[in-house]
């Protein structure tokens, strides 16, 4: 079946603008994760959803970042008042649910803030 898909694959925006990044998880996967990967770094955890609710949002860097998953499937990561330091690859992953060790990653969205 289809893997995790993310759109757009690339996003260039100006400092101060608002952006939305979308993640479509594997069908049937109840858990969804967002990570951020800066150049030369490993992925950094942002937020985890189990179903529709954010079970752990401790990785969100500040209140400019927000994520939703209203129907328990597709998720949107929203960044307000973007800053140049937000430039990174934003990765989404999904898994079968709580306690599942295997997360399946999408290809990521490369965000560039100019």
């Amino acid at each position, binding site marked *: 079946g289809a893997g*995790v898909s993310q759109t757009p694959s690339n996003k260039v925006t100006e400092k101060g603008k608002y952006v939305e990044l979308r993640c479509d998880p594997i069908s049937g996967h109840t*858990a969804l994760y967002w990570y951020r990967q800066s150049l030369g770094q*490993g992925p950094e955890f942002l937020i985890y959803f189990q179903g529709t609710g954010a079970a752990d949002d401790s990785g969100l860097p500040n209140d400019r970042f927000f994520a939703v998953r209203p129907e328990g499937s597709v998720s949107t990561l929203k960044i307000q008042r973007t800053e140049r330091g937000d430039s990174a690859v934003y990765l989404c992953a999904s898994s079968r649910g709580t306690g599942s060790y295997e*997360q399946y*990653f999408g*290809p*990521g969205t490369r965000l560039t803030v100019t």
Partner: protein
Amino acid sequence: TQLLEQSPQFLSIQEGENLTVYCNSSSVFSSLQWYRQEPGEGPVLLVTVVTGGEVKKLKRLTFQFGDARKDSSLHITAAQPGDTGLYLCAGLPRAEKLVFGKGTKLTVNP
């Protein structure tokens, strides 16, 4: 904060050589995973090790989890150009929250 240190950061070898990549932490993890990531793609899970001292083999790749569950290694035998990529270790304080190292960028030259 639980940190994972990977070494070396970069590794360039010739086809047919053997190599070992290390992942170390001062913290204990319930389990640890190794991923491989290629440019423009997300990480792909290679293995999960759960028990201290555990050794897992995946064709030419051998993974070991330290007895104290603080460190791990990945050994590749007779490396091939197709092994080129970024190798990431990730600790699991719990299943829902991966903590990644910075990765080892491996290049295998033909």
